[in-house]
Structures are given as C-alpha cells and as structure tokens.
C-alpha cells in the first residue's frame, strides 16, 4: 500500500562481493579515497583529544624534545664535548630531536592505533589502514609546533637557512614513511600479540641510541658507515640537519640507503597488514 508509492529508485551502486580469500597486494586506493573524510575526522579527533585535560596542552609537543636536547647539551655537548659539525651543540641536538620526535610519535601511535580503536574495529567497517594513517598524520601537528621553536633557535644563533630548506619536507616525509612502515608491522602484530606494547617502548629507546642524534654520524668509522646507514633514521637525521646547515655536502648516499630501506619496510608492512586485517575483528 504505502510501500508501493514509496518504493525508491533501485540503487545504481556497484555490487560488493564479500568472500574469504579476498586479501591482495592492493592498497585499495578506491576504498581509502571513499573513506578520506573518516581519515580526516579520526586525525582531527586524535589531535583534539591528545592534550585535553593537560595543563600545558600543546606545549608538551615542545617540552619533551627541548628537555632532552638541553640535557644532551649539558652532558654530551659541554662535558664530553661531542663534535657537532659546525653547529652549536644545542641546535645540533634540538634539530635532531625535532625530526626524531616526529618519527617516535608516529611510530608509537600507529603501533597502538588498532588497539586504541578496538571498539570501532569490532563494530564498524572501514579500511583498517585508516587507523595507523590517522595516527601518523596526527603526529605532524606536534612536529609543526616544534619546528616553530626550531625557528627561534635559528634566529638566536643567527643562522640563515639556505635554499636547502625546501628539501626539509621531503626528509620529514621519509621519517613519516619509515614510522608508518614499522607502525604497520607492529600494529598488525599488536592485535594478536600484546607483547608488542613492551617491544615498542624498548625499540624506540634502542633506536634513539642507534641514530646520530646526540652525536654526528661522522664518528662512525668510514668502513662501518654503510652498515650504520641501514638504520634508515641515520639518513633522515643527518639529512634533516643538512637542510638547516649552510655548509657541508649532502649525505646523499645515506639518504639513498634510507629511502630504499624505508620502501622495503613500508611495502612489507603494508603487505602483512593487508594479509592479516581480515582477522583483526576476530582477534582484537
């Protein structure tokens, strides 16, 4: 009766086929694009929520790298006198901390992103890649704020950046891609093995020491340099400092190794994530 008059148009949308063995290499670019607004809202939520109920709010984005940089300056810069390649040691350490903090935050948050969104994953469908992606994007805000403070450092030390500064976003992108690659592995593993949350804290500390943050990469002997460069953050940190500095040659080989390693981790991480994402809702 009423239903007859109210019969709507037959949907002209495509047919979705749900089957078990559907996992593939594909990144599902179409699906991701369809859910771009969800990516935006989740990122926005993470940013909004992060510093709620904190007294210092966004200042925390700066306090952490600043405090560590100052401590390093005091002990390693002043007392141990670690070389700092022509830069004042505080700037040398803080600039490294800025890019390191971006990497460490993005890595930690993306590793935890699936567990943090557990309720969503068990109750709603969306391409699961959205979760780690939004965590990584949200960590860019902290990065932007600590960059502002870096600008004050440059002004204080009267360092005028050269045109190299335009490559800074590329180096930052590389840091983000490495974090995402590792984050995808850890996030997917975290669903099944809660050991991961202990691994992440340890991994970040270990990685910090293995990267040229408190010391320049040049202290590593030449013949070990390539092996050292297999840590993709070596290229990133050195490259980041290079974009601020007016002197010295670009660490091109380190950056090249870093980019290759980053791609390998990212492709592997995406593949593992996509292979296991069908079972996230069952295991989480």
């Amino acid at each position, binding site marked *: 009766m009423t*239903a007859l008059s109210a019969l709507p148009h037959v949907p002209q949308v495509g047919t*979705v086929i749900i089957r078990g063995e559907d996992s593939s290499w594909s990144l599902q670019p179409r699906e991701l694009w369809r859910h771009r607004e969800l990516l935006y809202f989740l990122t926005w939520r993470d940013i909004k929520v992060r510093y709620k109920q904190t007294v210092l709010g966004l200042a925390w984005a700066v306090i952490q790298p600043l405090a560590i940089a100052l401590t390093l300056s005091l002990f390693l810069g002043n007392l141990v006198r670690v070389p700092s390649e022509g830069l004042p040691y505080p700037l040398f350490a803080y600039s490294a901390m800025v890019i390191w903090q971006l990497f460490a935050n993005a890595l930690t948050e993306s590793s935890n992103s699936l567990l943090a969104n557990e309720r969503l994953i068990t109750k709603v469908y969306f391409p699961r890649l959205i979760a780690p992606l939004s965590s990584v994007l949200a960590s860019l805000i902290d990065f932007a704020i600590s960059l502002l403070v870096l600008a004050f450092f440059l002004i204080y030390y009267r360092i005028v950046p050269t045109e190299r500064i335009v490559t800074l976003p590329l180096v930052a992108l590389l840091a983000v891609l490495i974090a995402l690659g590792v984050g995808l592995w850890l996030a997917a593993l975290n669903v099944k093995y809660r050991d991961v949350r202990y691994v992440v804290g340890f991994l970040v500390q270990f990685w910090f020491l293995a990267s040229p943050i408190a010391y320049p990469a040049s202290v590593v002997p030449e013949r070990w340099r390539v092996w050292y460069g297999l840590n993709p953050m070596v290229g990133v940190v050195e490259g980041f400092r290079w974009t601020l500095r007016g002197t010295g040659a670009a660490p091109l080989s380190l950056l090249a190794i870093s980019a290759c390693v980053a791609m390998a981790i990212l492709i592997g991480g995406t593949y593992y994530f996509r292979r296991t994402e*069908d079972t996230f809702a069952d295991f989480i």
Partner: protein
Amino acid sequence: MPTSSENGDVVAICCEGVGKRYRIGQQERYRTLRDALTEMARAPFRWLAPSEQSTVGVAARNPELWALKDLSFEVKHGEVLGIIGRNGSGKSTLLKILSRITKPSKGMARIRGRVGTLLEVGAGFHPELTGRENIFLNGAILGMTRREIERKFDEIIEFSECGRLLDTPMKHYSSGMYVRLAFAVAANLETEILLVDEVLAVGDAAFQKKCLGKIGDAASQGRTVLFVSHNMLAVDSLCTRAICLHEGRVVLEGPPGLVTSRYLQTWLPTFKEVVHDDINAAPGNEIIRLHRACIRPQSGSSTDRITVRTPLVVEFQYWKLAAHTSLDLAAEVFNEHGVNVFTAAKIAEPPAPAGLLRSSFTVPGDLMNNGTYRIHLTVLLGGLTEVAYWEDVIAFEVHDAASELRGFYHDHWPGVVRPNLNWNTELIDSTVPVLEACRI
C-alpha cells in the same frame, strides 16, 4: 506479497554457502609471542600467512567452532528481514560478515547498495569531545559524508533533544542523553541497506519505541533492513520475512508470524521441573545452591496440565550454605514475547538458618493468559548484593481452558494477563425512544 513489483525482485543481499570458523580460544586475549615463536620454529614463514593456513597440528590443539555453516539466503530490495535465534546461533556473526567487519571462512556474499551498520550506538564517541564534534565524528564513522551530516544536523539535534548541551563535552552527558544523541545520528543514516542489531534498542521503553519506529520508517521508505532481535513482537510487526538460525544454519524461513511462533514452540524447552541432586554440582556457589525448581497446579503434580484457570504453585528448594544471612529471592515471569508479566519477590524476611530450604509462592487461577512462560530467579544477599542469577530456571506452558468461559471466542484472548472479570449490567432508565428497525 502485493508490494512486489519489478523493483521488488532486485536482490539486495545474496549469501551463498557462507561459513565462519573460529578456533576455540581465538578470541582470548594475550596469545603470547612465545607460542607463536615455537609454532614459527616448527613451520618457518607460515606465520606470515593468514591463520587459515595454519598447520594441522595447531588445529588439533585448537578445536574449531563453526559459528556459521553453509548459510544461503537472499534478501530482495525493500524487504525487512528479521533474524532470530538463540544466543550463539550465529546472528551477530552474520551481521558482522555482511557489514564487512570480518570475513567469511567459506562461501561468499553479494551486496548491492550502500550498507549502513548499526551494531552499536555511539561507536567511536569520544567523551572528551563535545556533542557537536561527536556528531560529525560518529557520522563519518557510520559512513556519512560531511555534507550529509551538515544537511541532517538540525534533524539530529531535534531527535536527540540535547540541543542545549551541544557544546559540552560528552563526558558530562547522562547515559540517557548519550544514547539519544548516538541514536539520532544513526537514525539519519541514509543507506540503501541497513543492518541493525537489537542492542540498538536500549534505554527506556519510550525510547525503544522511538528507535523501532525509525526502523519501521526506513522500511516504509523501501530500504532493505536486516534486523536481528530477541523481541518477537518487534520482528512480527516490523519485518516482512524472517529467518531463524540455529547452530549457524537457517532452520526456519517464512512470514515473521509463522517463524516466531514456530521458533518459540521448537526452541523454547518446557521444563516444569528441574532437580539437581548433587550439592556440589548444582548451580550456585558457596552461598546458595539450587536443589529443585518446579511449577505445578496447586492440587496436583508437575506433570498435570496447566490451564488459564489453574492456581499454580512455584516452588524452589535450595541449600543455603551461609548462616546468619537473609537471602532474598525474586522470580521474574516472562511470556513468549519477552514481556515481564510480573515479579514475585521474597524480601526483608528475618535470616533463615542454613540448610535445605523450600520457598514457594502461589499464582492465583484466572490470571495468566495462555502461552509459554519462563522464570528467571535472582538471589540477593542482604537485599543488595546479587549472589546468583539463573535464567530460564523453569519454563511452562499455560493452556486454554474449556471454551465455556469465552462464549463465541475461540482465538487468542488479547492481553498480557487474562483475569476472569465479571461485567455488571443493569437497567437505569427505560424511557428512551426505541428504533423499531434495529430491534433484534
């Protein structure tokens, strides 16, 4: 069906042999890395593949459970399909597969149209965000575009009745307001297909009605709805067709009235007497253990037939293992539609000694309507702490009495209860004009 036109024949959802396997223990948390490492050592690189391809050895240690088995059915565009079944029959798993939250282990499903999933109200609500912010977030999570949400915004506010608190963080909302706002967003989801779990219908009775009304609206707009519910009345009134799942298979299919009544007859066991002889194995704990529960006519045994006129005795025998305490009992009586007909509570009595006790109450005749009933028993300690809660302790059927009571009627007597009330009719004034033609 008169409503089936050429549009009605378009298949919206088609399931072909869908199966879903869980490993027992799969949903347990904290699988240790050590387990995985030993497995990995046994079969290197196997861990990279999805769990399905795990070794036979693993499967043997983890017996599997098929939540869905070879499930096939079709839903036409514009149909409202009710899905009923007991807990664990696979209803929720089915919705999860159709909404793509999890993948089937076997078979495939084809879905034509945009799917909206309402398995939980307020999925993704964040307590620190304001109502306004959460509307956008939740809308995006449910698959609405920003423009859609903006267009619907006023309607959502109106439906939720929390306009005043729009810019207050949701942690300051009462649970009622929280649910209302959550449902208001969900209710404005405009997808061609809606998958609805009954957990959606939470809150007070008035709000439940509002929710069910919205689902009814969606149906009348010609959208396809899959509705999982334990509420037989809702399924009867909202759905155009129903299926009943049992152990992961479709066991009944057809018009909702038929499916729900057969479901109730078949799957609701009628246990009028239950006895547990072993005090250590009986249901209960260190405070109380249930020995015997039964229902019988006041003058007869539990095997006698119960009619609408029979006075009934409901009796519980239990071992009270804690001395110097008073145990309160509350027996809730439910009819086949899930309506709590009445509750008989034994409260605030002086402490009874420990030992085997018998508590009973009498239900007068001419009170219960004919139908199937279940009794849940709650045991409270000191009137506050719930000590035990037994669902479906006993179940029984009340039959129709001899027909003389009902005059010409011989169909279901409407109403939740059926007291035998006497009408009183008397003449108070005989001086009214009488129409000759109407005199019978």
